[in-house]
């Protein structure tokens, strides 16, 4: 009987264009849009310069910085004290401090340029940082000439971050596996909608009158979305690997297991949403709040979990996306072995079972039909006046 539900649901997905798009190209499309807005080339990012050297070398460096298409030297400051204010007002995204001894190169040491970065502007600041590094590096090498052996060379720059959110700025490579957790929320949203739709259409009441067990009904609806969700997982991996150059370094089987557990847990949450929501509109709103916003902010994609208030951290532990991002990132980027990620496997399994049981429980308690306002009784036979 569960199979009958699954089969029927599968046909629904194929027939309903909206649902079909949502669970097939939806996640890919969203990923492309997202990465596009996150990685579009930064042009003429405003920069503050604090030149403590005031010599030919420092002037040459500033000219080169300004000449870069990605950087515009917006302000010249006397000291670094003002940068924080400029960051807060959004006038610049980074500041470069050129030390007083800039240009004096010895065999073992290069004077380092300090880059101060606004941590709240990770994308443009990162671009600026890379650009400043390259320019300063090239310039230092030129100044040192052949005298310098490259392996003795210290980095010509060191970085300081103000208004810090993230110890290491996210790069495309870092956030791609994390973003996958967000995109893969789409099948769960589609599932929530599907059950809410059955409630609205009255087919749910008909189903309740059949001998199908409640858990089988919910599970039957879940499987097809899980299938499509796994296809999405591989499609996103392929997109990352070949389009965005985010190399997959781990074990695909291990990753598949984590992704499967995550999809199941996330769809389970979708079921909970849909047994609570009375209408499709309500389901959509709750689903977006549950599947999109929290994974975006909380799953470590942009902001480290450790920096969050404890209550929020606790809440995040109950979100499948958090564990998927942690484990997925580790396998994807570092090739971490599954046995080191047993905690995430256990947590995802626990959440899966819990969500299924919670949704089944609520579903059983649920009053059929839902609330309707009492309509005044009317005899609809022929017109007849009741005195």
């Amino acid at each position, binding site marked *: 009987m569960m199979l*009958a539900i699954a089969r029927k649901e599968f046909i629904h997905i194929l027939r309903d264009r909206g649902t079909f798009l949502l669970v097939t190209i939806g996640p890919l499309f969203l990923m492309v849009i997202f990465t596009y807005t996150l990685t579009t080339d930064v042009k003429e990012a405003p920069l503050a310069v604090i030149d403590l050297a005031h010599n030919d070398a420092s002037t040459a460096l500033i000219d080169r910085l300004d000449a870069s298409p990605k950087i515009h030297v917006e302000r010249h400051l006397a000291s670094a004290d003002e940068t924080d204010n400029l960051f807060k007002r959004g006038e610049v995204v980074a500041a470069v401090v050129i030390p007083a001894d800039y240009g004096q190169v010895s065999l073992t040491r290069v004077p380092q340029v300090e880059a101060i970065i606004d941590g709240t502007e990770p994308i443009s600041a990162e671009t600026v940082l890379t650009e400043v590094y390259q320019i300063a590096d090239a310039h230092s090498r030129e100044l040192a000439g052949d005298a310098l052996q490259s392996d003795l060379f210290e980095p010509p720059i060191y970085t300081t971050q103000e208004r810090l959110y993230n110890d290491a700025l996210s790069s495309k490579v870092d956030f791609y596996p994390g973003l996958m957790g967000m995109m893969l929320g789409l099948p769960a949203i589609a599932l929530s909608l599907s059950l809410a739709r059955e409630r609205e259409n009255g087919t749910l009441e008909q189903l309740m*009158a059949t001998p*199908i067990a409640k858990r089988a009904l919910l599970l039957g609806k879940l499987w097809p979305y899980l299938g499509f969700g796994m296809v999405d997982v591989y499609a996103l991996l392929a997109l990352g690997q070949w389009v965005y150059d985010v190399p997959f370094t781990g074990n695909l089987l291990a990753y598949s297991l984590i992704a499967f557990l995550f999809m199941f847990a996330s769809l389970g949450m979708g079921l909970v949403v849909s047994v609570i929501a009375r209408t499709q509109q309500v389901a959509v709103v709750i689903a977006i709040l549950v599947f999109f916003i929290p994974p975006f902010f909380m799953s470590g994609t942009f902001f480290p979990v450790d920096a969050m208030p404890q209550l929020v951290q606790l809440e995040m532990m109950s979100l499948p996306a958090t564990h998927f991002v942690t484990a997925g990132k580790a396998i994807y980027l570092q090739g971490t072995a599954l046995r080191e990620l047993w905690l995430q496997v256990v947590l995802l399994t626990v959440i899966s079972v819990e969500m299924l049981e919670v949704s089944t429980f609520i579903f059983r308690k649920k009053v059929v039909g839902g609330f309707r306002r009492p309509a005044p009784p009317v*005899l609809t036979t*022929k017109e007849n006046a009741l005195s």
Partner: protein
Amino acid sequence: MSDYAIHVEHLTRKFGDFTAVNAIDFSVETGEVFGFLGPNGSGKTTTIRMLLGLLKPTDGTAHVLGTDIRHATRQFLAQVGYMSQKFSLYSDLTVANNLRFFGRSYGLYGQRLQQRMEFVIELAGLGDFRHTPIHELSGGWLQRLALGAAIIHEPKLIFLDEPTAGVDPVSRRDFWELLYTLSQSGTTILVTTHYMDEAEHCERVGFIYNGDMIAVGTPSEIIEQVVPGQVIEVHPPDALAAQQKLTSAMRSGELAAHGVNLFGAAVHVLTTDVASTQAYLREVYGATYQSMPTLEDAFIALVQQADHANGGSPVPA
């Protein structure tokens, strides 16, 4: 109790402080076509949901096919069929897919599923539409398909909640023919409707109004009890004024009648004293027509009595 397919005692359902079904009692015998009648919002659907175990009663009990509905199991649901009030098939699936789905939901498979599908398609005359997505079918076909889906598992008892609402008269008649066929093969049928003409097709009827079961019996029993005698019909130029005038004449005892009802442009006067009433009406309005009272006359009388008992207001708050 075992010769009853349905036996209901003091069944009550409240939503908050609103009583949707108020301590109703009735029984349906095995093999009977029972009409469950009442205006919209009177508690028919709520009662059926309770009888299927989909909604818990606030008070009272009911046994359906011998099962206490407070402990309805999946085995119980496998023995009853339900065609809910709202159109509830999957409009993106074909006729065959819908039937197959509901068949499987009831645990049918293989040969037997195929056999039942063929039987139902044949019965409903849907042979030509087997592979048509059902959103392309018109009301009458859909109604028969929905009935087919409700009986695919050969239930002993079926609940039909306003199966003919919004369907044209010809389709309605065809539908009732189908119900007779089913009934003849031994299926017990509880059908709700607010079309009074359909009520006459039922072996027994129960009339629910504002949650109260105000009459149960065979149509002729109810008519006999509630509106004994005959109906004298007149067609005055101003029916409403005439109805008011005749009502006060009846109350003062001047007119020997026990009911004066408006039927469109006609006024029906219910009486056991045919001769004198006819004479009285002829004098005032000329031609009169005489007929037997219908269930509709009985229900209007019952509703008036119920409203009267409620202090004259037609809808209790």
